[in-house]
């Protein structure tokens, strides 16, 4: 694995170039340009606010700005997770020519797909920051948690991305299965709702490795509290395992790519 990581480092400029290509092409192709990066998160945030509004009606309680902020803060990263897994799933099969014809470490493709989505994410998050300033959410020391949580999320996405990209090269219908998971995943993840609404049973929802990260972001940005460190460590551990095993699996399958694609 050490050898492979060294080689990946050697090709770091290629990772940058492929990411640049993916971003450039995406923004060149759509007239909407940067709106593309914001449109999907906006849709998710809007639907989240509708759902939250329904809760408020049922609970006979007013809809607090804090809740709206929490939905927005969790929706944008969720959009990132969905799109990065979706794009990395097709990253190998979509670059058939390069996989078959030229040698270089192929994990660059799913990684570049995640990085390109990360770019969209930053654009959307910049818009979110403006929104948060507008509703006067305020700052706290706990904002230092944000990069840690995002880093863990990227690790998780790259791990899942490498796994699904390699498997979907061999089995073309895997992408439909992934798509179903991505569509319904939002119901099993605390994006529109908070884990604390479930009281004691909330811990079952936290088993979803994405949940502690999203809850953590919401805690430290909207509520000015520390994330639950134990659950964060669980997420980190999970992400590391996914990342390492994804890399090992990918490298194991890589020699067969050219003849199987």
């Amino acid at each position, binding site marked *: 694995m050490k050898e492979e990581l060294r080689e990946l480092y050697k090709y770091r400029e290629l990772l940058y170039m492929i990411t640049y*290509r993916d971003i450039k*092409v995406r923004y060149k192709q759509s007239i909407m340009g940067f709106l593309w990066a914001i449109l999907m998160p906006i849709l998710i945030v809007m639907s989240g606010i509708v759902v939250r509004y329904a809760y408020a009606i049922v609970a006979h309680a007013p809809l607090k700005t804090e809740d709206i902020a929490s939905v927005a803060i969790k929706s944008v990263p969720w959009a990132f997770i969905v799109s990065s897994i979706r794009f990395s799933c097709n990253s190998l099969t979509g670059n058939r*020519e*390069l996989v078959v014809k030229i040698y270089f470490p192929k994990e660059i493709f799913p990684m570049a797909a995640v990085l390109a989505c990360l770019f969209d994410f930053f654009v959307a998050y910049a818009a979110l920051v403006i929104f948060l300033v507008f509703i006067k959410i305020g700052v706290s020391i706990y904002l230092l948690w944000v990069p840690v949580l995002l880093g863990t999320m990227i690790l998780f996405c790259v791990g899942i991305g490498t796994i699904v990209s390699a498997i979907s090269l061999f089995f073309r219908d895997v992408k439909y299965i992934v798509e179903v998971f991505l569509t319904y995943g939002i119901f099993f993840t605390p994006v529109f709702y908070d884990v604390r609404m479930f009281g004691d049973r909330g811990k079952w929802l936290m088993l979803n490795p994405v949940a502690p990260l999203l809850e953590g972001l919401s805690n430290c940005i909207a509520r000015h509290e520390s994330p639950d460190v134990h659950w964060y460590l669980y997420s980190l551990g999970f992400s590391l395992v996914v990342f390492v095993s994804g890399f090992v699996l990918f490298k194991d399958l890589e020699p067969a790519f050219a003849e199987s694609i």
Partner: protein
Amino acid sequence: MSDVALRMEHIFKKFRKGEIYNSLRDFLPAMTGKMFRGQELDASDKREFWALQDISFEVKRGESLGIIGRNGAGKSTALKILSRIMKPTKGRMIVSGRLSALIEVTAGFHPDLTGMENIFLHGTILGMNKREIQSKLDQIIAFSGLEEFIDTPVKRYSSGMYARLGFSVAAHVNADVLVVDEVLSVGDFVFQQRCMERIRSVIEAGTTVLFVSHNLKSVTEICQRAMLLEHGKVVTIDNTDAVIRKYLSTDETSKISDEKKPVYISRVTVRDRVGEQSTFESGQKAWVDVEVTAREALDKLAVVIWFKDDTQYIIFHTSTERLGFAPFSLQPGGTYRCTFELSLNIAHGTFHLVTQVYRYDIQKGYDRREPASTIFIGSTTAVGGAVNCFPRLIESETIVPSIQSCEV
């Protein structure tokens, strides 16, 4: 470092043909079916075939090796293993230094990006870093001859421009070992010449080159040694002329004859003074024997022969009738034989002999064999071009300007 640039030791490569499950929907039922029935252990063996069998060779630093063989002989598989895109099933391989492949020169392009952006993208994919590309940028653009279009998205390029840009980037990668696979078929004649020159200068600079081509002429121009592959095995490794002779002598296409035709060419041989031959010196005499056999009675026939070069251009043709022989008639089962004597005043290259039975008065062609045979004219350094006019230099003089004229 040793003086061996690359070496393959007993390389085997197995492929599976036929059905490969590429969706879970097919794969899972097939797997469970296999588990319950426990069948087809030997059936899977039948679906495998060896694309490469026991390939061993070595290329010294600065040497250039040509690889020739028919379609499906395993040339491309060998190159893919060398460039590490595929892993051999068995065997060991050593490549010392940076290997660059001119295999698919436009694989890294993205149609929506401009020529300039694609130079950087493709260059990085081929293993160059940004600084390296920056320093060679002018050279690359000049080589491609696409200065005007460099800021146009490459999807608007013609296929020739596309390939030219791809080759230009690939050809500027600093490599210790360069693998070239049939890329010279792109672009116009001028560009092909430029590519050949580039490859030659790369060789002169001490780069090891592996050259795969069906164009035997370019193989002889570039490589001192060559390897002949057939059905995944090495037939011979020797100096290029000898290997080409061997390759042409195992021509398989000339053994086909059609069962239904009323008349067919039953035999064509090209020979020199001694016997059957496929390699000649420029200016040498050659004899072409043609035998025609009829299944039905036919009248007023003639035998036509012509030579084509690799570009399908007919460089020469003649027939029994043009040479003043009367048309012949054949009874069912009858045969006709004729022999042409030719002076091969051709410059060096590969030429394909085509033979046809023809009836001039009604302009009807009967059986045609293409190519009936392929000959190779060995290289002479004295002349270039298509024909050999056997030039002699009769006089030469150098005129020195006189001192007086210098003062004025």
